[in-house]
């Protein structure tokens, strides 16, 4: 732990000097100011119901974020614990769920679109427009070049199998369905998810 964390352990009331004085027989002034416990950190945090992102037990969680959603606040998650009302987990969380805060705020969280050109040795930060324009162009080029409208027997098959997709196992149903619509409307067949692994 680093020194800044000592702030959390700071207790209200008297410091060492005062309480030592009390102990040495200088009256009860010291104890009257004695330390109390660490202040409860969630008193005014905003509580939001959510579901754990890991396995399929789908434990109910309560996400606590700093701020009351006022206009001038960018809320950030400060603590996550189990939803005691949830019929399955009843407030409990496993070691992954109990540490969810560290995945939301992981140093490995991505914040900027990046691009690596063919043969390049480095990432470059790019704009969303650059990334999406370029991806759409590459996809269209590949699709137009390799789309199979009819098979050898002359049957309509409208299939595109040279670009594939793996869909997200932790994305919501809504993201999944929109992904499905887009991928299948393009004729994409090399399309799978994490169900097998």
């Amino acid at each position, binding site marked *: 732990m680093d020194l800044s964390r000592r702030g959390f352990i700071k207790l209200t009331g008297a410091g060492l000097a005062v309480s030592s004085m009390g102990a040495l027989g200088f009256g009860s002034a010291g*104890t009257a100011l004695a330390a109390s416990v660490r202040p409860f950190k969630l008193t005014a945090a905003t509580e939001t119901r959510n579901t754990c992102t890991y396995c399929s037990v789908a434990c109910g969680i309560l996400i606590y974020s700093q701020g009351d959603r006022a206009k001038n606040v960018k809320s950030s998650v400060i603590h996550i614990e189990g939803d005691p009302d949830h019929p399955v987990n009843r407030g409990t969380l496993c070691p992954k769920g109990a540490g969810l805060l560290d995945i939301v705020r992981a140093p490995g969280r991505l914040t900027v679109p990046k691009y690596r050109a063919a043969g390049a040795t480095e990432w470059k930060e790019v704009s969303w427009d650059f990334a999406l324009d370029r991806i759409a162009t590459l996809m269209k080029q590949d699709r137009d070049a390799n789309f199979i409208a009819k098979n050898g027997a002359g049957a309509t098959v409208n299939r595109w199998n040279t670009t594939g997709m793996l869909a997200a196992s932790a994305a919501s149903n809504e993201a999944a369905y929109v992904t499905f619509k887009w991928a299948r409307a393009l004729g994409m067949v090399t399309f799978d998810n994490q169900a097998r692994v």
Partner: protein
Amino acid sequence: MADLQSQDYIRRSATNLTPPSVRHHELEVAKLIDVSRCIGCKACQSACMEWNNLRPEMEEFQGAYENPHDLNPGTWTLMRFAEYEDEQGNLEWLIRKDGCMHCEDPGCLKACPAPGAIVQYANGIVDFISENCIGCGYCVKGCPFNIPRISAQDHKSYKCTLCSDRVGVGLEPACVKTCPTGAIMFGSKDDMKDWAGERIAELKERGFQNAGLYDPPEVGGTHVMYVLHHADKPSLYSGLPDKPHISALVGAWKGFLKPVALAGLAFAAVGAFVHSIVAGPNETTEADEAHARLEMEKAKRNGSAES
């Protein structure tokens, strides 16, 4: 219990004053760790780190599931794993959540020379008030369970607080809430003992004839208790003491060392560390121990005591 302030103290380290207290009608709390339900998942460790904003150093794998390898200033609870084969060759994986036992008669508090660095609340929680801690390490020597750890960074002693900040606002400790299988329960000490009784009866039905409650009388009982399938051999569980006792060194505190240490504290108050000053032979007598037990009884009766 609206809060855990001085009026809720029943004991305060190195203090010859009784904290003012009219709040003696206090529910004694306890955490019950049912080892037979524990799956060693470390959710308690995870929740403890998360709630208390602790992130100890990431260590290496060293041929054991214990990570970190031991309690440390940022690891207030630790799952300990023991692969045990009985005489018949049956394998049991005995997994125990280690951490502060919140003794009724806390060796750490008795040993502590820093006024108010260790307090015991009327509900049974033994808490370290870091502000007052001088990092002398006496609590480590005083603890029969080898729990407190001194930080090399800030020279303060740390251990489980039983989430006194959560308990203080009417919540259960973080480890209790998170425990997936209900191996950690929390409530009044009486309720926990009743529940332990049911669990022990069930374990006996399943063939664990020596199942029992670990609430060692040697330290006046504890506010963290275990249900063990082999209560006849607590040491099977990664060295849980069969008969915990407060080090003989601690009793000496009652005698001639206390004035010396307190004198030292005057220096401590302006920044010196006492552990370099307090040194010398330590002895104890049965009378000291008896006196301590008497004090404890009085404390329980009155809801307050002087240490």
